[in-house]
């Protein structure tokens, strides 16, 4: 479980997160929706221990991120919104080194590497250095890096951005398989069809606050809309914005 309580954060005096609280239960996929600048990335970075919060508390699997960030990172796999690879390393070297940094050795290491290689169809890329990889190939390697130590919790920041159809399908299939295996998944996205297909629960953020929390169908009913996109606009910007946009259309 991921618990976020009364989280606050500001950059150069500008509040980015304002008293944000939510809980993400184990073994489910939760989508984080919000416009650009709503605070999604900052929130995910605080949860993964990359940034410190100004106030509030974050617990991952019962461990306080501020007190023991290293223990939290052993339980977490994170795929950022824009990630670079090491172009002088082959995929095998890259994944081996990250698995070793997570403490894997010997047969555990081999098993994990074989697992991500087959699950993410990395066979053709395995011995190649990552220079010149397509966006889809880069995403597969980044996801493999996040999964190689079999984390309990997986965080993805806009994972399908820039992916072609096949790569996006593979990613969605992998996430559903991980959910079945009991992994807790949080992802941010702007693609409503993807959110609808994958998520058990949706959190809607606007200006650093949580403005919607529930299963997709329940949220749509709450907002009185028949699709998730209208629901998001209504919750994030207000009913007036939705009416205004419908009038323009």
């Amino acid at each position, binding site marked *: 479980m991921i618990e976020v309580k009364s989280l606050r954060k500001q*950059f*150069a005096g500008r509040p980015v997160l304002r008293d944000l609280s939510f809980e993400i239960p184990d073994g489910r996929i939760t989508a984080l929706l919000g416009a650009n600048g709503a605070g999604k990335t*900052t929130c995910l*970075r605080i949860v*993964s*221990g*990359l*940034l*410190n919060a100004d106030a509030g508390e974050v617990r991952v699997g019962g461990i306080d991120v501020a007190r023991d960030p*290293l*223990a939290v*990172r*052993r339980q*977490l796999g*994170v795929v*950022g919104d*824009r*990630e*670079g*690879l*090491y*172009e*002088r*390393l082959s995929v095998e*070297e890259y994944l081996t*080194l*990250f698995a*070793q*940094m*997570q*403490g894997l*050795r010997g047969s555990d290491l081999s098993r994990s590497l074989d697992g991500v290689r087959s699950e993410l169809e990395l066979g053709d890329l395995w011995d190649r250095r990552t220079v010149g990889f397509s966006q889809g190939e880069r995403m597969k390697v*980044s996801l493999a*890096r996040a999964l190689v130590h079999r984390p309990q919790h997986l965080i993805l920041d806009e994972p399908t951005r820039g992916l072609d159809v096949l790569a996006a399908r593979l990613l969605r299939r992998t996430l559903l398989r991980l959910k079945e295996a009991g992994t807790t998944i949080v992802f941010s996205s702007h693609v409503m069809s993807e959110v609808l297909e994958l998520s058990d629960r949706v959190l809607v953020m606007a200006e650093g606050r949580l403005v919607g929390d529930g299963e997709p169908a329940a949220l749509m009913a709450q907002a009185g809309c028949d699709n998730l996109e209208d629901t998001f606009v209504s919750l994030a910007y207000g009913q007036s914005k939705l009416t205004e946009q419908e009038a323009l259309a």
Partner: protein
Amino acid sequence: MRMVRQWLRGPMGALLYKELLEAWRDKRALLTAVTFALLFPAMITGATVFMFKVKSENESRLALIGAERLPLLAQQLAGEQLLVDVLEAGEPAELLAGEYDLVLQVGEDFASEYRQFGVPRLYVYMDGASKDAGRARRQLQERLAPLQQQVVQQRLVARGVAPQLLAPWRMEMRDISTPSDRGKMILASVPALLIMTLFVASLATAVDASAGERERLSLEPLLLQPLPPWQVVLAKTLAVASLGWLAGLLSVSALTALMPLMPMAELGMQQATSLSGVLAMGLLLLPLALLVAVVQLLLALGSKSFKDAQMRLSILQVAPLFLLMALDMSQVQLDRPAWQLLPLVGQQQWLKALLVGDSVSLFAVLAGSVVTLALVAAFILIGARALRRESLLGAT
């Protein structure tokens, strides 16, 4: 030792291996390091050889005609930088067109004039258009002046006049430098250049491992691993320093290998640097290589972009050279123990001594190295704090 081994087998070992792979697979960085490491010893060797070649070219050749009329003249004139050939006869124009810079002819009536206290003639033939004529004439005048002074004194004595009346004082130049000192002077720039090698060789790797990794967006996944930030900085420092240090070692080895080509005898030096000397110099450079690496990493991490980092480190790489040259030219006695505690200054003094075969104080080396390593540790902790900066992740 066991603890270090276990530590290196764990996540830290993987991180260090990753940093070393990244550093040593960067062909451009490697090429820069090797090129500079080999280029400067080659340049020092070339410059020294050239300097002595120029010196030997400064010798003048004088043809002396009619020496039998002034028997001691040839012996008095000959010496360093003036070669005198006594000829029985010869045409001055032909001799000057050949191998001679100057022709000195003793007049036929020289002996009789001299005996009668007259003013006998010495004829000097020169080719005014030749670039070497002026130098040869100056050298001849320098040799003739004391001889002339001696004759004047003898004549005064013969007339009962004390020669001191004509010369209230006599100035004598005495060069108190030893051959080893002259060698030291010529090789004084080598330690500063060796230290500069550390900066130049690790520059590209330092930028790549910090600002480069941030710009390529690969720093964030690294910071998400269960490793304390100080270990990340330490691994990067070791990887960056490995390149600088090995380039330094390569420079020392190249310099030692090229020493036989240098005019060591003319420098008054023995081949002071042996294999053990190379190893000693390598050990001396190790703490400094670590310090250079961590300072470069910190500066690059604090820069706004990859280019900004390159500019900062380019300025930094020449700073020690100017600093050490300024200190060398100042009146400060850098060989005092207190100065040797300072990074850069200590290493410069020890290298200087080892290069000419002098001994260095083991205590000074240990104390200076401990100070340098303490600074490395402090900078690693500062770097660990820098990795927590929000601006580093583009979060602000």
